[in-house]
């Protein structure tokens, strides 16, 4: 297992796009958060200030998903997969190693991204007259840790789907559809019961419940339960990818 992990780490470390993708996760998360908070004016100074300052996760997740997808997708697009599977014939071990390396890398990256977004958002919102958030607050801590876990889980979902689909474009299309279609459809559905149901099962809407700091009792799903729903999506992706990988020709 250690050799498999080492091999995956070397592949990831030496491929030229990796560092740019990880930087892009940070830049896009912080950037979109900063722009959104800058657009806020303190008319009633209400609303979920914490969640607003973490809006950048909406864009960061798409890039985290690319990182996950490419980890498997490139193996298939350039034929490396056959070599990898020859070197490590126990195929689930390959996927496990990839998942572990991806988790470690994304956890570090998303922690930086989320913290950066929070600090930038807090400074800008304070300038606009909103109340200043404290990082030692339990809700704030939950939102920050939860958002970093959220980005990591999205990456893992991407990895699982890419393993199942074997095409980078198809995989990223599927992940983005899962991430963006649930929220859009639940915006469009005007029946409140269906809206709630969709928000409970959608990976984005359920997972981002972890960022909520106001009206907690009115959330469609409890914060940690919501992140659990996303974890189920990621596990389902990885398991189906793993099963297909083990049974199929490369």
């Amino acid at each position, binding site marked *: 297992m250690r050799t498999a992990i080492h091999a995956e780490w070397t592949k990831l470390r030496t491929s030229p796009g990796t560092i740019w993708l990880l930087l892009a996760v940070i830049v896009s998360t912080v950037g*979109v958060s900063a722009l*959104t908070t800058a*657009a*806020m*004016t*303190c*008319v*009633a*100074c*209400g*609303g*979920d200030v914490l*969640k*607003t300052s973490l*809006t950048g996760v*909406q*864009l960061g997740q*798409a*890039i985290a*998903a*690319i990182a996950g*997808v*490419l980890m498997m*997708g490139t193996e298939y*697009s350039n034929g490396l997969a056959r070599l990898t599977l020859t070197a490590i014939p126990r195929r689930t071990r390959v996927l496990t190693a990839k998942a572990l390396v991806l988790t470690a890398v994304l956890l570090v990256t998303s922690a930086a991204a989320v913290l950066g977004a929070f600090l930038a958002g807090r400074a800008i919102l304070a300038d606009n007259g909103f109340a200043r958030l404290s990082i030692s607050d339990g809700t704030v801590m939950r939102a920050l840790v939860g958002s970093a876990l959220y980005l990591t889980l999205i990456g893992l979902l991407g990895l699982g789907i890419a393993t199942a689909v074997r*095409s*980078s*474009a*198809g*995989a*990223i*299309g599927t992940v*983005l*559809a899962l991430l*963006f*279609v649930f*929220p*859009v*459809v639940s*915006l*469009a*559905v*005007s*029946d409140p019961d*269906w809206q709630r149901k969709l928000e409970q099962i959608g990976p984005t809407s359920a997972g981002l419940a972890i960022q909520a700091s106001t009206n907690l009792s009115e959330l469609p799903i409890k914060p940690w339960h919501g992140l659990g729903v996303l974890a189920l999506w990621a596990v389902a992706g990885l398991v189906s990818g793993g099963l297909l990988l083990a049974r199929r020709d490369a």
Partner: protein
Amino acid sequence: MMRQLRAEWTKFRTVRGWVTGMALAGGFIIAFGLFPGMQGTCTDNKCKLPTGPQGHLVTDRFEFAGQTLDGDGSLTVNVTSMTGELPPGPNAEQPRQGLTPWAKAGLIIKDGTKAGSPYAAIMLTGSHGVRLQHNYLYDQAGAGAASWLRLTRAGDAITGEQSADGTHWTKVGTVVLKGLPTKVQAGLFATSPQHSEASALLSSSGPSSVTATFRQVSQQGSWSGQLEETELTGSGDIGPLVSGSSGLGVSVTQALAGTFLGLVFAIVIGTTYVTSEYRRGLMRTTFSATPRRGRVLAAKAIVAGGATFVTGLVAATVAVVFGQKMLRDNGVFVHPVTTATEVRVIVGTAALLALCTVFGVAIGVLLRRSALAVTIGVTGIVLPYILAMSVLPDGAGRWLLSISPAAAFAIQQSAVEYAHVANNYIPTEGFFPLSPWLGFAVLAAWTAVAVGLAAVVISRRDA
């Protein structure tokens, strides 16, 4: 050029993934349109609404104190006070004192008391000054402040006048109500519409009311009786029906919720249509066969865009026609729209999907990496929409929906905006900042820029 088109069409139809993807895109749009998720209470004509003289559905509820006027005549009144009650706001629990901007009190001449009948009215409003309105759709502003109002009938013509002191009168305007009978209802009225308020992240809406005091009523002409000085309290509105929080029901756009999923497919297909050729080295063969590379790009854009357009057209037609029927059968009130609007929404949806495919082709050429290209395409179009609909304050949201590719969703708007009807005309209620075709032009401009760049890059770069 025909040869290139044929070659690209052969490539397109023989790759199973693209054909399946296209079928799935159409299938999802139809499935979302026919998804029986929504239930309403408008079964058995329970939501039958009055229709105005122009065939529009209207709201026609107001408090009225009137008499029958036979032939020509006039009515003058001094509205000495207007007060009102507003629903609890975003930061308040209790109803508050105050006037909603379109609270109305004044004089009205109407063809009978049947809801939806022709009328002309002059009124004071909460914060829009003196207005002369008629037949629900039409609104004229008066000049300056006034508390005296006069409405005069001469044949089919009705003239509204305003005055600050009861002696110096200014004409606001004359409107013509064709075919107005000799005997009409005329008198005092008061009404106040739904009050909506939106602050940074919250919005609220609820019924409001207005109380108006009418003094020094004077009548000229042949009346059935004397109008007394009185006080009227009213809640409701006289105007066209709007959809959204101040209105009722949904618009046909509801049946096209699947467009977003279709759009992801369109971009994936457009992008891989190019990137897979680069990955497998087929691009070199293609360029050897057609050394004028711009033609390859054009052929790919036409074939992929055309295939998406046809798929989108079929899917959107089915979704709108049958989706609407299903919603109505479920008792949901769907705003009726003109056939022209329906055609624009359907054709616009197909064209929107086709443009997304062409956008995908162009960024596929520019980036040659499918995962990155698909992500840029999808997030570039969908993310601004989500941000504008969920987190951004109204101003920033409208700005984003005016300049980003997501502006094109305006082509699906079927709800109509009226300047003289109070409503939350915001994106989340289905009202886009740009007009349908202008919004569509924004996406077209983005696509044109991407295709232009791709045309330059494809000719200068090694394959």
